């Protein structure tokens, strides 16, 4: 599940708002022009075929970036394909094809197992079947549209997915949208995942059953919905439901996530609901022998009532199937309109699937199938982990060949797509009709036909373009930061780099301050603490915190809820990963410079776990208030000053040391976070009472400003006094100022 960072959401909304405003303006002028021109007589009396806002999106938003979609290709959608060049003379309103093509790396097609291109085993069989059966049967399955091939494939599919029987359809979309109405009707309930494919949505709508939605991939919410619905029965009449079907997908095509099938099946079994699993993207692509999510997640296929899948993706053909018990299939063959009224699946396409499944099962007499399966898993996991290391916000689970990269801002859609294409990598960008408006993304589909070199080339380009477009939302490693450390004066770079997270700018900004060079690690460390409440980073000095990792922490902490990348987000883990180790060496000297100070502070810190966050906040807050101009020592002093109240606030012996985990740091519901916040506010109050005039201000930031000012003035006083003392005879005034002086002395 994506959780949109506030700032990104804001900029995205702003961009769409701008586009909308300009679109409306253009519409307004268009209307004026149309009106002033002679009205077309023919259309009088007809309501416009597309009403104003209905195709507003198409006219004013989509058309501008039309060239990023529907790019024609002129070859098979294999690992590399020829993208046809297009040009436009009217700002993308119309695109013209040229005869030129560009060879591009294909990261867009659903060619998971590489059966899209001519295959040594499949293609000859397909051509034979074409010669024997012609391209079509011109008839429906129940009339003259059933050939030997169709029955053979039905048996083969049933055997492959592990169900007693199967039925074929000529199109995957129709499979869903025509089967669901046959299975369930009025008085039934369909509980559908919130991110199910449009074909399921249409099928459910067409069935006449009531449709309820559960939160994407959340078995607990599914259970909640099931309990509520069974208890309440049908709306208004309160009769019990006739039957309930829960519809989920194996791999969500726009999320790349695997379905939590075992949990969902358990819930469905408990509440006697039927399960309908759409394996459009998972069949053939995942599982040890390509049998889909059931095999991957260890679910017995007998527990899934209806298994649906398509042949478009892994098998490189077209059409879809339903696999279920013999009785259900018999019933569907008698009832399903798509079986009764639609032209049967094209025989060569049927043959392609038969051959592909035989290759996967190893029945072609080679082990190519097993190789392909191993290859796709390896390729996807490699690609996904590399993308994550680069700092992209990649959705989805391991083993899934679908990996969306979040783009968010509308301007980044064409930027990313065009720039990648320019560098000969074809990537799908997905915008509104297929995803929610705010969650635009690029989607990568990995194939078994990609070689390692292909993937590396793809990664290089994506990384480059990602930097350019600014979509590395989780800069885990951030080689840029390392660079910046070398030339510390390039502030502008830092700003552009962190434009999405102003919180990161703080950190980067500090990095760029030449004067604060030696102070850097500690500063960053503070920030880290503020965010994570973890002191692991100080547990050993030979394993220092890195700016990259810190930046990530900051990301998750700074009052913005972003989905955190890897779930086990202990800081230690991050700093141990090899990619972080590399810039480590560069940093080492600086680390040593400040090492002593740091250790000193670390010692203090370890005893006051709960007190730390406040300090982090303070050190960040201080920066814009002239703190930068001060010397490091002064900063340090100030830091320590701040700590003075803390020793008085000894943590009670029985206190629970609850630490917020990184992912939960911003989640106000987590117990740990609440405890942390309480502690912060407690100490804030103490500070408030200590500093005169502080009670009047409201708001933590202002209060901290006040405190900082106060501490600074105290420092100045001390300096002044000590100067005075030095100039005058110490014996004379010592007594008078002793209390005050002593207080400062123990701090200084």
């Amino acid at each position, binding site marked *: 599940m994506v959780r949109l960072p506030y700032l990104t959401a804001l900029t995205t909304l702003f961009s769409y708002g701008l586009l909308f405003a300009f679109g409306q303006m253009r519409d307004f002028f268009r209307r004026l022009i149309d009106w002033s021109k002679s009205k077309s007589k023919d259309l009088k009396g007809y309501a416009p075929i597309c009403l104003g806002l209905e195709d507003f999106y198409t006219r004013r938003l989509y058309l501008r970036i039309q060239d990023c979609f529907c790019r024609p290709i002129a070859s098979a959608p294999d690992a590399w394909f020829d993208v046809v060049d297009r040009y436009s003379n009217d700002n993308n309103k119309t695109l013209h094809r040229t005869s030129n093509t560009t060879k591009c790396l294909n990261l867009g097609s659903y060619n998971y197992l590489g059966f899209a291109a001519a295959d040594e085993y499949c293609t000859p069989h397909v051509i034979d079947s074409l010669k024997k059966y012609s391209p079509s049967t011109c008839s429906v399955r129940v009339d003259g549209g059933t050939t030997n091939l169709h029955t053979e494939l039905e048996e083969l599919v049933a055997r492959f997915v592990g169900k007693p029987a199967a039925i074929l359809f000529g199109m995957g979309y129709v499979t869903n949208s025509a089967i669901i109405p046959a299975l369930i009707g009025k008085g039934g309930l369909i509980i559908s995942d919130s991110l199910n494919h449009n074909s399921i949505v*249409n099928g459910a709508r067409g069935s006449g059953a009531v449709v309820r939605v559960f939160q994407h991939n959340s078995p607990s919410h599914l259970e909640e919905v099931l309990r509520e619905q069974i208890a309440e029965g049908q709306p208004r009449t309160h009769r019990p439901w006739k039957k309930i079907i829960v519809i989920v997908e194996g791999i969500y095509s726009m999320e790349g996530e695997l379905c939590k099938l075992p949990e969902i099946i358990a819930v469905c079994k408990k509440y006697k609901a039927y399960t309908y699993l759409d394996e459009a993207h998972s069949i053939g692509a995942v599982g040890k022998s390509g049998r889909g999510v059931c095999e991957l997640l260890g679910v017995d296929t007998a527990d899934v009532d209806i298994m649906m899948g398509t042949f478009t993706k892994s098998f490189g053909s077209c059409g879809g199937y339903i696999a279920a018990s013999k009785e259900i299939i018999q019933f569907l063959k008698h009832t399903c309109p798509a079986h009764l*009224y639609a032209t049967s699946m094209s025989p060569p396409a049927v043959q392609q699937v038969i051959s592909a499944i035989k290759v996967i099962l190893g029945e072609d007499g080679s082990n190519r199938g097993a190789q392909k399966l191993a290859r796709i898993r390896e390729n996807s996991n490699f690609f996904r982990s590399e993308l994550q290391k680069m700092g992209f916000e990649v959705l989805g689970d391991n083993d899934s060949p679908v990996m969306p990269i979040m783009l968010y801002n509308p301007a980044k859609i064409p930027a990313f797509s065009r720039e990648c294409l320019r560098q000969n990598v074809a990537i799908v960008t997905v915008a509104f009709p297929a995803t929610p408006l705010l969650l635009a993304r690029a989607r990568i589909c990995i194939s078994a036909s990609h070689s390692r070199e292909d993937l590396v080339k793809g990664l290089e380009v994506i990384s480059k373009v990602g930097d350019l477009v600014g979509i590395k939302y989780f800069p885990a490693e951030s080689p840029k930061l390392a660079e910046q450390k070398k030339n510390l004066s390039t502030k502008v770079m830092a700003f552009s780099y962190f434009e999405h997270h102003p919180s990161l700018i703080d950190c980067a900004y500090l990095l760029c301050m030449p004067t604060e060079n030696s102070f850097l690690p500690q500063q960053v460390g503070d920030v880290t603490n503020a965010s994570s409440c973890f002191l692991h980073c100080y547990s050993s000095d030979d394993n220092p915190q890195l700016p990259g990792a810190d930046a990530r922490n900051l990301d998750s902490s700074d009052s913005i809820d972003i989905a955190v990348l890897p779930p086990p987000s202990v800081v230690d883990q991050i700093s141990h990963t090899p990619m972080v180790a590399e810039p480590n060496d560069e940093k080492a000297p600086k680390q040593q410079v400040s090492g002593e100070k740091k250790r000193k502070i670390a010692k203090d810190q370890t005893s006051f776990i709960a007190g730390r966050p406040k300090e982090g906040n303070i050190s960040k807050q201080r920066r814009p208030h002239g703190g930068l101009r001060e010397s490091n020592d002064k900063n340090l002093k100030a830091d320590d000053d701040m700590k003075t109240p803390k020793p008085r606030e000894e943590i009670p012996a029985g206190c629970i040391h609850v630490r917020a985990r990184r992912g939960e740091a911003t989640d106000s519901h987590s117990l740990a976070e609440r405890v942390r916040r309480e502690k912060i506010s407690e100490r804030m109050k103490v500070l408030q009472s200590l500093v005169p005039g502080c009670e009047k201000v409201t708001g933590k930031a202002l209060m901290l400003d006040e405190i900082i000012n106060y501490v600074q003035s105290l420092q100045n006083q001390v300096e002044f006094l000590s100067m005075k003392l030095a100039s005058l005879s110490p014996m004379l005034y010592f007594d008078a100022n002793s209390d005050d002086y002593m207080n400062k002395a123990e701090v200084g």
Partner: protein
Amino acid sequence: MASAVMNMITAALDWVTVIFDAPLARAVVFGVHIDGHLVVEVLLVAVILFQLTRKSYKPPKKPLTEKEIDDLCEEWVPEPLHPPITEEMKAEPPILESAAGPHTVIDGKEVVNFASANYLGLLGNEKIADSCISSLEKYGVGSCGPRGFYGTIDVHLDCETRIAKFMGTPDSILYSYGISTIFSVIPAFCKKGDIIVVDEGVHWGVQNGLYLSRSTVVYFKHNDMASLESTLEKLTRENKRAEKIRRYIVVEAIYQNSGQIAPLNEIVRLKEKYRFRVILDESHSFGVLGNSGRGLAEYYGVPIEKIDIITAGMGNALATDGGFCTGSVRVVDHQRLSSSGYVFSASLPPYLASAAISAVNYLEDNPSVLTQLRSNIDLLWKGLSDIPGLAIASHPLSPIVYLKLKKSTGSSKSDLELLNVITDRVLKEDSVFIVSTKRSVLDKCRLPVGIRLFVSAGHSETDIHKVCDSLRRVAALVLV
């Protein structure tokens, strides 16, 4: 006697009054003598006031406890996923062992095939097969993606321009499956609140599209122009807002449920009179009607621009698969982003698009195939005119020749059983493959069932004589 009773009652009432008045007999408040009825009235007022001050009674809302919900969940028994399997559900269709051309092989026997809508006899055409093979070698089988995401292959675009050029329309759009064409196109244009006037005999694809569009659907009598006119009249006269909402007429060129041809000239007249738009499904007329096979508009000599949206499946005359929609640029472009069957589905396998291009080329080069088809239809009509118990119910030009029972048995189910006996015997005894119309329970069409014969230009004279003779013989045995 009566007076005695009256006296007693009066006496009793007096007593009651005295008893009531007794406690307050001499009570005078502010000069008002307080007697019994005043006391009662005051009491009544007090009770009313008391009741008024009470909160109105609401049955306490007690949400179900967890335990109760558990029990309810425990109690609930779902219906099975499918109804009990009957014998008729177990029926398996005949399995073809070769291409579904005019002659095919079933159970090792060569049969004459009247079950495939291979109107132009293009199945097994060498040229088309060659184009398919070269396409297969170049592009592979599937396109592995929806049109938006690198699933657009140059042959798709070529096919779209070819079809638009053939039909004489500005643009066209390809769908990957025949039946999904119409049920994606209708919801793309018709939304909630729009009005659709539709023939009651349309096939399931159209019905599904209508349902998904959530528009207001009004049916008119099957192929009855008077009924259409009165419906349109009623809709526009009643409705002052009619001008503001989109209005469509949806018809099929050749109804696959009856073999009738829609009188397009009349429909266009009505549409212009009442300002409706027309959505025309030409699945069975594209490549069949008109002098050069351009469909219904050509047959009636209606300019193609008058028909707003034309859809067709390519699984019939063109002997390939998929479908297309053609019309103005605006109509076509609108679908490219808002038609769910186009946006959310993998695109048509490229070899089928190549086959479509070759088929259209073939049709344009060989218009003689249409005369062949027409003469075959004529021949079949002549041969079937005297079948005992069966009557032709289709249009003389329709390549779907539709036979229905002269005397229905009363229910469409028993009719269908009877017809199935005929078709089975014709197949088994005379090796002629004909089929009855099968209806899904989800189909709302209520036209009578019948036997459908799909005539092809590839059928020879002997084939047609064979089917006529066979039907005559079997029908005489079964029906008379």
